[in-house]
Structures are given as C-alpha cells and as structure tokens.
C-alpha cells in the first residue's frame, strides 16, 4: 500500500467513530496491540521530550527503509504512536521526509488533545521526521 493509500485508510478508519470516547477506545485497542518494546531500550536518549506521558521511539534502517518501534506509559499516547508507526514504518527516508503529516490534523488528533498532549504529538512527528532526514 502506498503512503497515500495508507493515510487514506487511517483517515477512513478513524472517521467511523463519531464520538471522541469511541475514538479513544480505538486508540486504546491500537495501543494495547502495539508490538512490545524492549525494557532495556527505554533509555534517556530514546525518550521524547514534550509529552506529559513518557514516549520512547527507536528506529532502524533495513535495506533503505525505516522501521520504527515505540512505547509509552500512557495507553492513548501509545495508540497514537502506533497509528503513526503503521503509516510510516517500512517507508523510505525520502517518502517520510517529503510528507507533510497533515493527516494527523485531518483525523482531528491535534486539536482534540490537550495542548500538552499536542506538544507531545508534535515532538513525536518531529522525531520521526528527523530520523528520516538523518538517513537521506
């Protein structure tokens, strides 16, 4: 699936829920299903600043594609990061760096989270983008 198709799919999945509580339920499900992240790698270096909850994000470059791994102590945040990973993992650095991440706004995540949380989201996106730019 191309990046555009995947983003469209996420937007459609998300728009199935009218109520914010249902969207949270969905994010919680995603968070719970996220692949486990090794405890030993929850280092200061991998920690993303600017979140009320703690988020660890790591990546590797396999055959020219970036694969992300992440964890958070808060489950909704974990759901959001899982959403981001499902969209951007397995893409080339060029694809990621060239994206505007506006789908996050289209699904209403940014304005419907508290400012501190939105900051966290901004930091998560910035970290993914920086990873991609470093690899170009």
């Amino acid at each position: 699936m191309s990046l555009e198709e995947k983003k469209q799919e996420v937007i459609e999945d998300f728009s199935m829920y009218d109520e914010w509580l249902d969207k949270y339920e969905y994010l919680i499900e995603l968070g719970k299903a996220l692949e486990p992240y090794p405890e030993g790698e929850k280092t200061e270096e991998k920690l993303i600043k600017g979140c009320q909850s703690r988020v660890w994000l790591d990546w590797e470059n396999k055959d020219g594609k970036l694969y992300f791994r992440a964890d958070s102590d808060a489950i909704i945040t974990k759901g959001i990061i899982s959403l981001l990973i499902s969209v951007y993992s397995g893409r080339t650095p060029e694809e990621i760096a060239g994206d505007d991440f506006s789908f996050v706004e289209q699904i209403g995540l940014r304005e419907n989270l508290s400012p501190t949380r939105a900051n966290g989201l901004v930091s998560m996106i910035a970290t993914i983008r920086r990873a991609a730019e470093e690899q170009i």
Partner: protein
Amino acid sequence: MDVREIRSQFPALEAKVYGKPLVYLDNAATSQRPFVVLEKQRALASGSNANIHRAVHKFAVDATEEYEKTRDAVREFLNADSREEIVFTSGTTMSINLVASCFGEAFVHEGDEIIVSVAEHHSNIVPWQLLCQRKKAVLKVLEIDEFGGLMVESLEKLISQRTKIIAITHISNVLGLVNPVSEIVATAHKYGVPVLVDGAQGSVHEKVDVQAMDCDFYAFSGHKVYGPTGTGVLYGKKKWLEAMPPYMGGGEMIETVRFSGTTYAPVPGKFEAGTQNFNAVPALQEALRLAESYKEDSEVVDNQKNITDYLLDVLTNDPRIRLFGVPRGTAVKIPLFSFAVEGAHHEDLALILDKMGIAVRSGQMCAEPLMDRFGVTGMLRASFAPYNTMEEAEYFVKCLNKAISMLI
C-alpha cells in the same frame, strides 16, 4: 447559600464542552470568576482607567482610591495589624520570589540554612534554590509521612543556629491537608526563625488570621480566590518589610532620586515598582468578600464537607486507587484529591474525563519532589470549589470508573 444560587453567579459554569455540561474540578489551579468581579474589572477599565498614585485629575484620584481601598480589604481578609503590611504583587510566585530575593539579600549569608517541606509547590522551592545558589546557603527539607502528613515533630531537629527562614505551605496543592502552621510558627519563633506561609490554597479554604498565626510572611494569589489573574498579595510583618531592600526599582517606589543616591518610599510602596495592575487589583475586594462569605456560610461548609467525606470514602475504599493526602487523627482535608490508579496512566484518565465534560488536572502538579517522594510520575487531581455540587462529585466518580474500565 444554596449551591445553585452560587453557581448562577459564575458565568463560566454555564459552558458546555464537547456538548456536555462543564464539570470544573480544576479549582486548585484557578477558580472561576463571578459576575461581580468581572463587572468590577469592566467598570474600572471604562470608568476610571488612569494610572494611580500620580496625577491629580479625577480619573486618577478615583483609580488610586479604589486601589488603596483594596489594601484595606486585604488587611481585613488576613486580619493584618496594618495596611502597610500588605504588598500587591502579581501572585503567590512573585510574593515568594520577592521575599527570597529581598529577605535573602538582607539576612542570608554563606553557610546559612533555609527550610522548606518536600510537599511544596515549585514556586516555594525554586526561589529558595536560586537564593541558596547566590548566597552559597543550604536548603533543608522537612519530610512527610506516607499519608502525606507533615512531620512537624522533626522540625526542631532540622532547625540550627544557621537557619534563617522556614517556608512552608498552609495547604499543599497536591495533598489538600491543612498544615499546623501556627504550631510550626511557634516552634520556629522559639529559635528566632521567621516563617513564610504559602497561602495559595490556604487563603481559599481556611479563615486566615496572620496575627493569630503569627507568621512573618503570607503569600496568596487573586486568581485562586475568584479574583482576577495577575493579582496577588504579600503580607509581611512591618519590621521585616522595613529591613528588606527593594525588589525592583522604578516608578513610585522612590522617595527622591538623585545620581548621588536614591531614597525609597516607605512600605509597602517600596515594593510596588512600576505601573501597578490597577484595573484588576480593586476587583479583589469583591472576590475576597465572596471568599469570606463562603467560609462563614454553614450550607457551603456542609456541602464541601459532604463532598470531601464522600470522595474520601470512595477513593480510600477502592483497591485500584492510591490516594495521596489521607487525613489522620484531627487533620483537616479540603475537597482536593490527588491520586494514582494502578495500571491506568493519569494522562489517559484526564483525557477521557475531559471528553465527558470533566476538567481535572493530571501530571506533576508543579511538585516534582513530592512525586518522587511517592515514587510516581504524576497524579490525577480533582479539586472542588463552593460552586461544585454533590451531583458533580457523583458524576465524577461514575465517569472515573468508566474511564478506568476503558483502560484496564
């Protein structure tokens, strides 16, 4: 006073969030403002907007009078000995910084000691740390027990010949327990040590009598007692205020200015540099009158007590919940509850509650040392005001249970 009637005086409480009625339980962060306060601010801005203490024209005279009348109202609110002991500031934080800076400049030297408690708001920690860095002084910490009670009995052991001041909160914004400040002051004074009381929460919930308490300084914020943001008070005993150098220079804090040397205005003017917040400060008169009336009204007191008892019962009997600040013995708890839920992150809970219309606080609550003390990264806090109803408390509990079940 009926709670419905009280509510009707606060326009913000009519708000809907996400289509649901707002249940505002973040009062310890800031309280809502009633019509009388909002109206007073509007009237001042349009009816007597002039800089105070300066011009002779009518607008300026009226504005100055309103401002100075507020000083009398604050004196009465705190039962201070004289109006000269009331300094207007921008809030608790500025009040404490003023004392740390000016008292510190005059009286704290290398090797001296300052005592704070582990349960202080950052605003009552960091100013003292800055002072300690500047003067090479030492900050000592009074601990709390596992229930959040201040270990007052160990205070005497902490006090030494080098102790210059003790800074302690009247009520912690996390624990919600009323500290025995009179007892602390009495102990400190036995050794000649002055005490600053952080009254940011105490001024809202307790009747304050600075003479009976005998504290040397008392600080509070207008925005937490139904007043305007950017207003605050520092009470200081005259002997200290007079012995302290000014905080900032400029404006009306002077007597004469010469390049050969400047002399300062008598207290409290010495500490009120620059244009004062003259549009907002006078609205404190209305705010404090209201705050006082709530403290004296038996219906309000009963309602707050019932909410406190109800939530204490719910939160201490739920094995998933760990409440911080549990009253023991004769300790008094205000309707403020900080807690952690096993397996559910405070931020997730706050986000879900928000979507149910409930405004609560989550995170470190400007008290990181206290979070460390309890070994948590943050807490969830619900804090109630006289305009909150028992139905809101019950709705909060219902929603909290729903949120927890969504998460675990």
